[in-house]
């Protein structure tokens, strides 16, 4: 039952937005994702260091605390961190770090720091936040080689997040193309595609991914591996989408407005692009949004198994690979910080997708996938 009077003058985009806005969590997630994607996009600027630069004075160093109050000078507006004082405990062999109050590094914003190549386009050295040359800043601590986790998380975000997007883009292309073909052509083609999908879906995903990743030629460059992994992850995922697309195609093909277009003499392409695709675009976008976190998690899983991305590429999965053991929890829990980001992003994408699903398609039946 719709209420024509009220709907009169509301555009569909606006209605969708109104509905979406009602999901506070989805809205917040969307904002969070925009922020983190921006940060990832400009990670050279937001990171303090390059992902592979090391601070030999800080191996497995815990996060530095940002201070505002100095014991001598009292409160000061410019926050600062103290340097580390390292002792290796002879009994426990643990590297124990304490704050060295004789070393004080004020945080500087938009100041020059470690030089970098922005997107490999031009050189620059300004960072969002940095400390003077003599000091170091490790907001999330450091890893086994003294690399800054904060910076690595940001660089990792670029890889992991873009991997999700590209993977899903590929999934969509494959899913829509193949599903659409099956749904539109029907008959033999449909049958073959349907069987193929069934077969692919009956093979447990992880073993399949493992097998495929293990098959990536070892002489591929890290970038090649990156794209290889994307292809592998999309290899299974498209099937789900294709099924949905096919189903929708079949259903929509019988919808009156599509029949009407056919009776007007519209050709196949016109029907597909003017009528069918727009009708489930919102559905596809939602599905895609919900599929991205799956990709990100899958990447961490593959990295965990050692068949995913590999150094010097820094992804969240690669970072978590360092954190995959018991000792991390006990001794260096800050190595799990990339995991926190994975969790946040995955949740955010899911909430966003949920919100979009509820908001999308105010007229058409938005039956769940």
């Amino acid at each position, binding site marked *: 039952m719709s209420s024509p009077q009220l709907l009169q003058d509301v555009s569909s985009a606006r209605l969708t937005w109104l509905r979406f806005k009602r999901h506070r969590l989805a809205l917040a997630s969307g904002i969070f994702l925009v922020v983190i994607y921006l940060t990832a996009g400009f990670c050279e600027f937001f990171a303090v260091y390059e992902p592979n630069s090391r601070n030999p004075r800080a191996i497995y160093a815990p996060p530095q605390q940002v201070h505002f109050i100095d014991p001598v000078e009292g409160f000061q507006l410019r926050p600062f961190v103290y340097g580390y004082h390292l002792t290796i405990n002879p009994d426990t062999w643990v590297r124990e770090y304490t704050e060295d109050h004789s070393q004080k590094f004020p945080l500087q914003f938009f100041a020059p720091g470690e030089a970098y190549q922005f997107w490999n386009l031009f050189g620059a050295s300004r960072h969002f936040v940095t400390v003077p040359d003599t000091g170091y800043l490790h907001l999330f601590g450091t890893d086994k080689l003294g690399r800054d986790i904060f910076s690595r998380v940001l660089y990792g975000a670029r890889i992991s997040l873009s991997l999700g997007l590209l993977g899903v883009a590929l999934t969509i292309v494959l899913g829509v193309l193949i599903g659409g073909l099956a749904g539109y052509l029907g008959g033999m083609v449909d049958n073959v595609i349907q069987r193929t999908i069934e077969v692919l879906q009956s093979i447990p995903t992880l073993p*399949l991914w493992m097998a495929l990743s293990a098959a990536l030629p070892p002489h591929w460059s890290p970038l090649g591996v990156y794209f290889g992994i994307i292809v592998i992850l999309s290899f299974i995922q498209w099937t789900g989408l294709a099924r949905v697309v096919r189903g929708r195609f079949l259903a929509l093909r019988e919808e009156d407005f599509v029949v009407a277009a056919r009776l007007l003499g519209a050709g196949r392409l016109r029907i597909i692009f003017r009528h069918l695709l727009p009708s489930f675009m919102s559905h596809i976008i939602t599905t895609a949004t919900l599929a991205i976190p799956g990709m990100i998690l899958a990447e961490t899983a593959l990295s965990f198994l050692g068949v995913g991305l590999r150094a010097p590429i820094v992804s969240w999965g690669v970072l978590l690979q360092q954190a995959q053991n018991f000792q991390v929890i006990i001794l260096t829990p800050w190595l799990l910080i990339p995991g926190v980001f994975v969790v*946040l992003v995955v949740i955010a994408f899911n909430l966003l997708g949920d919100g979009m699903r509820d908001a999308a398609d105010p007229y058409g039946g938005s039956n769940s996938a």
Partner: protein
Amino acid sequence: MSGFILRRLLAMIPTLLIISVIVFILIQLPPGDIISATLASLQQQGMEVSTEQIAALRAQYNLDDPMVVQYLRWITHFVQGDLGYSIKYQQPVNTLIWDRLGYTVLIAVASLLFTWALAIPIGIYSAVRQYGFGDYFFTVVGLLGLAIPNFMLALILMYCGYSWFGVSVGGLFSPELAEAPWSSAKFMDLLKHIWIPMIVIGTAGTASIMRVMRANLLDELSKPYVVTARAKGVRPLKLIMKYPVRIAINPFISTIGWLLPTLISGEAIVSIVLNLPTTGPLLLQALLSQDMYLAGSFIMLLSILTVLGMLLSDILLAALDPRIRYE
């Protein structure tokens, strides 16, 4: 009904055949082969190996036959129940696989039940209290389960299990009981260990099931027959359980089959972290070391399990939904 089952069984055959081809290609893909891996491990023990020895070994394992011949040999033996010989473990695959497969199924089923036990009531609750605080709360909790990478959660739980309850780290049994015959003590021991993988794998699937349950229920709740029943004076709890839940359950049953691959995948990761005697760790080893019969048989068996799971869910669905049964 039996005709239905028979038809579905027959339909499985071509699917499985195609899967077997894919699996076979898959395990042939990676560079290197098991013979080199074997030689590598021989060298690890200090033995010297020569090129001639390699050739001899390859001949022993028929590795130089054409692909098609190798495939046919593999699949005919497979069908006869001979899963081949693991070169890495120097054992017939049969002796390696069944226990592990059993535990995999056990864990998968336990996780599935756990997921359902958790997700369905919560899904019902959030549907009934749509947009309430509980709805949001459980959605986020459910998503947390989905979002925490399995291996991380497993590690954290393993640590908690050890430091709070003194559960031995890793494994499905305490060492004393691992090989003991089944007894109540062993069963209790299993329960003491299985909760970690169960929770880890289970929570990963909870979110999606919760969501589907909620969506299905919301869909169902406004269906005319539910309104009809309400108008009959049926009390809310009974009403929900008898109608919407009953029908909203159907999609779940139909997803058992599709869930299995996910569960098995989750199981693989968790088992590697926790060192469970299931297919996951062995499969990883087999894949990495190119033990193709082992890896191939594993993937094949898991796929058969999945296909059977789908069959099972179809049968259950047919049993539950008269419309399908009578078609």
